[in-house]
């Protein structure tokens, strides 16, 4: 048998991927730090009329309170709700301690966000036992050493492990045996699949497809007609529970970046701005999921003739807010003063990383804006419904109908000002922000 190392070694079990997901993480850390909060219906969110729930304790969920819900609505559902403001530095600290536990099992740990990680335990079997035993040990140690609950999914790949941990919540273990994938997936509603958002769910519903099992037997021709051949193939592979992505071990990032080479060169200023916005959004979103903020923004522009320019700017204060990253990248692009550029590649990078949500330097005459809260609400929605569930209107408008799930708010623009417009501080800008706040 190829790969048989030493006598007596068993082949590694096929269910080698673990998804560890902390239960109501932010809220649990708050309850950990303040015993008075334990057992109370508790949410972490920004206070104030525009605040959004970022994490809800299971006591609060009993009242119907959910992540990404406006605090005001949560309060209506549960009048005795306790709302605490977020302390990301603290969550990161606790997250690091939990990671220490995971790393003691295997170096193959991929952190997804402060409260989520994948492990590949194929090599850990000889030391620590079967994956399900490892999962049990991790849960016990997290509970004993950190006083927190987590749920673990054990499965042959990341997609299934993630679904399994969700099924197991709260405080449980879910196993998907390699020979039981169909049995596990078939009865699940389609929206449990990563990337299947509300729009796709309702389209499938109209075709009579409600469960993953029904999706698996949906005719490829019908799916291709409705969703287009690419997305249809993707759906079919999701329905089979197929996922080849490896677990990529964690490395502390020195920078977070996103870049895009275009199939055809961009020349319309509108399009270029939209791409910068999309890349800024991606970068800021990655900063937030890693609990970090960046001091410096860099753009990279490659023209059709392969000339490449980069520009960097250091911000007044570190940020993890898409609107700020976009303002800097848009301004820098504007300052290049390219005359009718044909652009082959655009990139946005954030460096000078610091822990925490990033303090924000306020501006004169500008009411503290809520882009940060808006971004966090988007994160939560994307986490639940997939990457395409929420999109800035400015980015989404361009998409051909039906190509991808549409956006949350079709009316109005994204509200982002065009970069580089010399806007003075004070009333002009604050008026504009006030206007966009109403829209978003």
């Amino acid at each position, binding site marked *: 048998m190829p790969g048989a190392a030493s006598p007596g070694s068993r082949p590694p079990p096929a269910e080698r991927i673990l998804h560890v997901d902390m239960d109501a993480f932010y809220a649990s850390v708050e309850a950990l730090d303040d015993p008075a909060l334990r057992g109370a219906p508790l949410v972490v969110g920004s206070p104030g009329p525009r605040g959004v729930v970022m994490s809800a304790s299971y006591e609060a969920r009993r009242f119907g309170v959910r992540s990404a819900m406006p605090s005001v609505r949560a309060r209506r559902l549960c009048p005795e709700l306790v709302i605490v403001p977020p302390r990301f530095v603290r969550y990161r600290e606790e997250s690091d301690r939990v990671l220490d536990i995971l790393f003691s099992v295997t170096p193959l740990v991929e952190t997804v966000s402060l409260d989520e990680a994948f492990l590949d335990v194929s090599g850990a079997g000889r030391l620590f036992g079967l994956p399900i035993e490892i999962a049990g040990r991790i849960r016990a140690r997290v509970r004993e050493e950190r006083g927190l609950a987590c749920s673990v999914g054990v499965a042959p790949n990341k997609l299934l492990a993630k679904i399994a941990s969700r099924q197991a919540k709260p405080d449980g273990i879910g196993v998907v045996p390699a020979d039981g994938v169909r049995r596990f997936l078939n009865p699940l509603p389609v929206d449990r699949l990563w990337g299947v958002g509300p729009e796709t769910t309702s389209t499938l519903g109209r075709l009579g497809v409600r469960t993953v099992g029904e999706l698996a037997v949906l005719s490829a021709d019908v799916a291709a007609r409705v969703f287009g051949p690419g997305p249809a193939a993707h759906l079919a592979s999701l329905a089979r529970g197929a996922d080849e992505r490896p677990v990529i071990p964690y490395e502390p990032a020195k920078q977070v970046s996103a870049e895009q080479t275009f199939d055809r060169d961009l020349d319309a200023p509108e399009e270029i701005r939209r791409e910068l916005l999309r890349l800024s959004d991606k970068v800021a979103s990655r900063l937030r999921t890693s609990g970090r903020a960046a001091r410096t923004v860099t753009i990279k522009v490659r023209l059709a003739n392969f000339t490449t320019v980069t520009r960097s700017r250091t911000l007044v204060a570190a940020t993890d807010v898409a609107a700020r990253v976009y303002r800097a990248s848009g301004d820098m692009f504007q300052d290049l003063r390219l005359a009718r550029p044909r652009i082959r590649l655009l990139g946005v990078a954030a460096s000078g990383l610091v822990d925490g949500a990033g303090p924000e330097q*306020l501006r004169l005459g500008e009411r503290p804006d809520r882009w940060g809260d808006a971004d966090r609400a988007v994160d939560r929605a994307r986490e639940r419904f997939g990457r395409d569930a929420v999109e800035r209107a400015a980015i989404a408008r361009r998409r051909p109908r039906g190509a991808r799930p549409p956006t949350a708010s079709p009316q109005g623009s994204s509200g982002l000002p065009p970069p580089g417009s010399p806007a003075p501080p004070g009333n002009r800008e604050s008026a504009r922000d006030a206007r966009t706040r109403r829209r978003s």
Partner: protein
Amino acid sequence: MKITIEKDVFAEQVAWVLRCVSARATLPALGGLLLEARGEGLRMAGTDLELSGETSAGARVEEPGRAVVPGRVLGEIARSLPQGVVRIEAGASETKISCGSAEFALRLLPVEDIPALQFVSQAPGGTLERALFQTAVGQVTRAASRDEARPVLTGTLVEADAGKLMLVATDSYRLAVREIAWKGPSEPVRRVIPARALQEAARGAEGEGELQVLLGESQAVFAGSGRRLGTRLIEGEFPNWRQLVPGELPNRLRVKRDDFIEAVRRVGILAQSGSPVRVELSAEGVQLAAGTQDIGQASERVEGTYEGEPVTVSFNPQYLLDGVQAVEGNDVVLSVRDGQKPVLIRGADDAGGFTYLAMPIRVGG
């Protein structure tokens, strides 16, 4: 042209006019300095297109004429010449400068390449005491933006009327305003002058007598003592700063200016890469704190008298220092509303003269 001039006089004039000559000129002539011998003196002039300057000094003119020489090199030569009389002689292809036994021959730049130097002479304006002008410019221009993305904020707003002159600058994170009493134009005038140019004008305002200020449509000129310095203006609408300045604020701290500056500097050492200094105001005075997880913490208490509710507010320490340092007098008053509104900084005994606002840093999500 052929002249002789006292070395110290020559060196001083060259140094003054060089502030208007670009160090890294895009056109060779923009790095050039015009020498013109006429009547009883030597006139020198230069421009970098933003600033234009001219100065005249007494010299013995043997033969009138003009020459353009490379400015920076002439500056170094003038500084390094031995004491004595300098002789300048411009020929067809070079300008000779000699003093003692030292001799330089500089290649000529074409006279016609230097942009025409023009200074408005008829415009609304007034006169100012030089030292007061220098103080006021120093207080205000530090709040101007250095970010060329919003050109108007890199300028200083000058608002002049019959009774007073206001200087205002803001980079949108802070705002500085200085009011000076003067005898100015009967019709109010508003101009935006590049902050860098205004700083050069203030540095160049050493001299005797009052400084004459002319606020033209496209140029502002500062003149006196045989010198004129003109600057281009910035177009665009300056923010309505009056509505940014809050009225009465409920919480007031009065502290010794120098003590406060020292403490912010010390604590500020641990406010690195954009992390703020926290200012806790209470009946006991003011407690400053800063720190990051990676490096460590700092804190310091400063005695003071405080009226109002306890308030905590965080700042970029430099923004706080810029304001407190600009205040004249022994005591400074900081007024605040809460952690998300600007702090108002004024001298304790300087009711209307200087006002500085700084916006706080909002901490956490």
